């Protein structure tokens, strides 16, 4: 009997992604976002989460989606990582998925480079693929800084796009 992973699934573009439920703090509607000058474009800004200032990253921009307007079903996943809260804008948040740990495959090597090094594995749920994300890599300052370098960003967005299509 293998262990089950509890994953919160959400959509960015056409894909379903997942983060471990343990790293999720809450899911909120998108409030007013205060933009921060001099920040990379996928860092949307900061929000007031009941008196706490939480920085918000637009996962759609991070993963190279073109459609980045805000709609009613957009949500912010507030995740907790290393004691800090961070918000992730996603297209919609769906459900809690239970994935047996043997149904998770390691991320293909091609993901390890470029903007998608935050992918830890691919989970299979009822014929669908769920891309599992590693919070520490997604929010790691190093990967963010690298992303904010302009030249690299383009390359990575392309890489991300390529990976998303595969």
């Amino acid at each position: 009997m293998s262990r089950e992973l509890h994953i919160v699934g959400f959509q960015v573009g056409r894909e379903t992604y997942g983060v471990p439920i343990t790293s999720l703090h809450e899911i909120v509607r998108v409030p007013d976002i205060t933009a921060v000058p001099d920040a990379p474009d996928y860092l949307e800004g900061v929000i007031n989460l009941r008196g706490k200032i939480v920085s918000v990253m637009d996962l759609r921009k991070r993963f190279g989606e073109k459609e980045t307007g805000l709609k009613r079903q957009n949500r912010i996943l507030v995740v907790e990582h290393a004691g800090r809260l961070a918000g992730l804008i996603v297209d919609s948040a769906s459900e809690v998925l239970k994935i047996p740990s043997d149904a998770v495959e390691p991320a293909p090597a091609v993901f390890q480079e470029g903007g998608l090094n935050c992918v830890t594995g691919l989970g299979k749920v009822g014929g669908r693929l769920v891309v599992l994300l590693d919070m520490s890599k997604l929010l790691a300052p190093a990967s963010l800084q690298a992303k904010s370098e302009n030249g690299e960003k383009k390359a990575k967005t392309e890489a991300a796009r390529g990976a998303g299509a595969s």
Partner: protein
Amino acid sequence: MTNSPDERGAELRDLFYETSQELLQALNDEALKLEKRPGDEEIVRSVRRTVHTLKGDSAACGLRELSELAHQFEDALSMEGAAAHAAVADIAFAAADLFSEMIAAYRKGHKLPSTKKLSKRIEELTSTPAAKKSRKKKSASLNKHAADWTEYEKLAMLQAQANGQDVLHVAVKIDPHCAMPIAGRQLIQNAVASMGPVLAVRPDAKSAAASKHVEFVLASVQTPQQIIAKCKIPTIAEEVTVDLLYQATSAGAQAVPDLTSDSKEPEAGKEPGISSAAPQSESQFAASTLENILRVEASRIDSVLNLVGELIIGKSMLQQALNDFAKRYPKDLLRGKFADAMAFQARVLNDLQRSVMKIRMVPVDQLFRRFPRMVRDVARQCGREVDLALSGQETDLDKGILDAIAEPLTHLVRNAVSHGIESPEERRKLGKSPHGTVRLNAYHQGNQVVVEVSDDGRGIDVQKIRSKAIELGLMTAEDAAQLTETETLNLIFRPGFSTAEQVTEVSGRGVGMDVVQSVLQRLKASVSLETRPGQGTTFRLKLPLTLAIIKALLFWVEQRLYAIPLNAVLEIARTVETEVHQVDNYEVLQLRNQVLPVLRLGRPAGEPGRSSKLFVLVITVGERKYGLIVDALEGEEELVIKALDDHTFSTDLVSGASILGDGRVVLILNLSAVVEHVAHLRPQEMGRAGSGLLLTHTDRTRLALTPPVGGQA
């Protein structure tokens, strides 16, 4: 008891690490005094007391090497003649340093520094002819108690007796199975001390017998039974015996003869023993004052302060609601009631905030007191004669700020001594007293605390800074010639300016001034300097009272709200586009009779969608003034600063954020970084120098893609 002996030991050690800092500071202070008045017996005694306490404490924690060294030093000091030795002060300094190194090594689990050198110096102290003859005779005591008491201790016993306390002898046999006898011993000592002042302890904590038994002389009003009950700590104390040494003198008439007869007996019965155990009275005193002092983790106070911050946000929410209410029902009687309640709540909240902040406040003396030693050392190294004058030590400052300025201040003081003050010969030639003076002063000024470091040395040569700046390629000769004196002086805060070795020598200031500056900027503090050739230099640090709450001015740039600290704002002016001139790729504004460099926070000039009327905030950063062009003003507000997640946002333009009463987030700008951005512009960017700093990605895209916009909501 639930704690294991190991945990208790660790707790003890932590406590020791903390208290030892105070002891070392005291040792330094005493050594300084001793240096001024060599041979003063009183000071030597107090050095001895300090070393003794250190010895006892360290032994109790099982730090053997430290306690042995302290013991040796203490022994040496107790010899007659040793006090007169000129090297005592020096050795005390060296000992303080070594002790501190050892403690640091214990703490981090590093290898201990060698004690051989100091130990040898201490030996020399005792082997001088003056000291030799004075080693007091050891005489075997035939007292019925195993230990013999020093004269001082005997005196203390008699005093306690006269004060109406019984003097008791408490002997405790430590359980041989106790896992940590030294820590256990300390626990017993604590238990004994809780019943009254401990007048003497035997044997010394460091001796081999320390782990087997321990004896106390205790002045107490408790009965022996009570004491036995208290000391009988299971698994530590195997056997406790209590004997009455001297009965308390209850009636005055009886007291006199009793006292005299008692006082003769021990003196006749025993020769004074080796006076290695110094009086315990000091620690008693400390203990009694400490009872009213709580050691609280700073984080706990911070969380209270955070909650107060939330309350302040809540206050402005209420205020906003009240304003709305007043607008909607201007005649409603409830309005007055609400306003009264609000005012009351605001007042209490203010008091609350002030009280919490006061908890975090500590006198700057905590910082100042480490300087006498440092000034002495540096002065000696550089061959200067320097007096340090301290004033305003009682001025309170936030602990966090105090800790943060320790390094910059040390730097400034060190510089003042080594570079500011001339050598004694030079000073004599100039007709000054050969003794230079470095002055440290602190005082309140409005909402700020000012800390000054001044010297009466040679001052800074402005001309030399200019030529150095040109030499380093920071500016052209023409530019340099145009700088005012203050502007030139501020060049020393430029990173890179100070790295060249010669600069330090010619300008007298240098290494790391940019570090000083950057630390202060982080604190939203400022540093300025004043210098008069031949008469000295003064550095003035202006520090905020607290880091958590600031008064801020709120304004709009590109439909977004920003705030800057109000104390940086000199004035708010209105002007029109035609008053802004282009000079050398920089925009400047003529305001009355001054010309200010201008920073456009929003879109650049000439872009459409901007009205020709402008708001200008005149701000000071360091000593320079700038004009910030903003779109509109919002007002003044008290902001509770919350840190931005700097892992995510690497920008230095924003120093923090705050939440307004209506839940909006406002970003607080880091003015020095904003100004810096202009100062370090690359030539090709010069055309649009100082504009569009606060535009975000989306703004830029919008401006570039859709030229004629009239602003969008």
